[in-house]
């Protein structure tokens, strides 16, 4: 059996709030094979975002292990994790998270800055990514001049431009109406079809139904696996 892409073993995470610790994740065990489309569901505050951030190496677990391609990420330095993020992970957030001062093109080019890709090829790949989400005509606009759906498409372009192997989407349609939302989802599905591993947090049962692998978080535990 080949080593799975992502492995979580007994991952725990707690946050200190008013001099006591609040447990957010209490022993998560999860295996995600390469090329999987995984959805995470669960009530608000159940720790979905926390889990996704640990997988995306923005956060570290308090205890337990996070392995990527069989390699333990626990001992990696900040620089190593950053390098890893820049090459392997594409984030899509609920609130888009574009840099307001930068144009669409520069927002999409942002990850290349940290991935040591030559300027020329960065420009080319960013343009391709923007075209693939159908925003070539908005290249020089600032995010504030775009609609919510367009902003999320820019965020998707930014996530895929560097061709990462994992896409992490935290309620990508949460701030959008259903029509725009399904449009965004079709882009994400297309990424999965192209071979990317996609993990998506969603409240939408229809989205979850579409995915191959589903987990349901409840009080920091995986309550249900499908």
């Amino acid at each position, binding site marked *: 059996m080949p080593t799975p892409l992502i492995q979580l073993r007994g991952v725990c995470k707690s946050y200190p709030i008013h001099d006591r610790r609040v447990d957010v994740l209490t022993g998560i065990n999860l295996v995600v094979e390469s090329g999987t489309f995984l959805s995470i569901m669960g009530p608000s505050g159940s720790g979905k975002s926390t889990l996704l*951030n640990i997988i995306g190496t923005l956060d570290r677990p308090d205890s337990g292990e996070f392995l990527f391609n069989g390699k333990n990420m626990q001992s990696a330095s900040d620089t190593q994790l950053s390098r890893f993020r820049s090459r392997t992970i594409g*984030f899509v957030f609920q609130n888009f998270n574009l840099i307001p001062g930068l144009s669409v093109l520069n927002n999409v080019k942002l990850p290349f800055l940290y991935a040591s890709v030559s300027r020329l090829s960065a420009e080319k790949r960013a343009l391709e990514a923007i075209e693939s989400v159908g925003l070539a005509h908005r290249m020089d606009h600032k995010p504030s001049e775009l609609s919510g759906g367009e902003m999320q498409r820019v965020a998707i372009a930014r996530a895929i431009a560097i061709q990462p192997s994992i896409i992490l989407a935290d309620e990508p349609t949460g701030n959008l109406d259903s029509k725009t939302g399904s449009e965004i989802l079709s882009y994400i599905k297309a990424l999965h079809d192209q071979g990317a591993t996609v993990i998506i947090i969603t409240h939408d049962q229809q989205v979850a139904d579409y995915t191959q692998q589903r987990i349901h978080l409840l009080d920091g535990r995986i309550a249900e696996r499908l």
Partner: protein
Amino acid sequence: MNKTLSWIQLSFNSIFQHRLRSFLSMLGIIFGVMAVLTMISISEGAKKELLEQIERLGTKNIFIKAAQLTPSQKAAAVEKLSSGLTMADGSRILAGCSQAKLIAGLNEISAAVRGISGNESPQVVAVSPSYAGLMKILVARGRFFTPFDQMNHDMVCVIGNTLATRLGKNGNIGNLIRIEDHLFKIIGHLQEVDPLSPGKKKTAISVRNYNEMLMIPLGADGSIIARDQETQLSYHGGITELIVQVQDSDQVMAAGKVIHRIMEIAHNHVPDYQIVIPRALFIQARQTQKLFNMVLGAIAGISLLVGGIGIMNIMLATVYERTREIGIRRAVGASRTDIVQQFLIESIILTFSGGLIGVVLGSACAVVVSRIGQWQTLITPWAVLLSVIMAVGVGIFFGLYPAVRASRMDPIIALRYE
């Protein structure tokens, strides 16, 4: 390299987005650098001026000047048999001071030179033949005096370059020129010298402008002065200035002490002379310079501290405002070091630009000061370099804390920041 370039570009973007704010935060640095550069240029100018003067006066020379006496002092001088400054003092010094190698005398004469267009009469001085050598005066045409001229009390003269031009054909070598009732034959023209900007600050001895001078051999002056009814009584081979040259400029201070004692005895403690050592003036000036430098350093320190605090303030505000951006950058792969570098570059660009503006304003200020204040100012490359380096240093020092703070932010909290 690619990264650094992009960051410089990004920083410029962010600085231009907040033009006014960035400019205001730079003001401290701008004025600090401006003040420092102006003051260094004044200080350097003064040093250069003094050095030029001292160089012209000769670092190996010691000047003994006849002092003006009050009537009561004059009476005392007669009582104590002091006859004022004469060439005899020179002989005593040559005999008594082993370091003294050469002497020259100079006597300023108030005598009218006839036949010159223009209203200003040239200054007439009687000098020893060795004067030219001691003061590094060069002859353009003809020759300077020889000991024979002096011995024979020859009625010859050497004139400055500007004076020669003013005289026109009459100033040609071989022609005669009338001083009071005597005719002197012109035997040489002096080479033109830079008259040195007439500094406001008078040193104890000022550099003479040879271009406008008429020189006759010492001794020949007697005949002019003897006819002058008013000064007839006081003429006894006196001179107004005696110049002693020592072998080496290092010996000048020691020789000065010996000469002081010789003169004291010879003049029976009558203070009818004054000893001036150009090199001592320089040493004295260096002491003043040290004090000036300390004041300068303090001002530089304070203004840069104030400027730095301004920069730190604005950088902290920038970091705070861009919390979300920091989170985004971290999510797409920026490491802590990347974030530190980004904000550090931004603060360096701020202080560097401020430094450059300060250099421009400071240079302009130095020019204005030299025009209005008549002080010589000098902008040296090292002063400009130092100012810019200081500005960049301030950018690094005061930008580091905000930059590190930015890098220490939890990316998740930063991403959620509204």
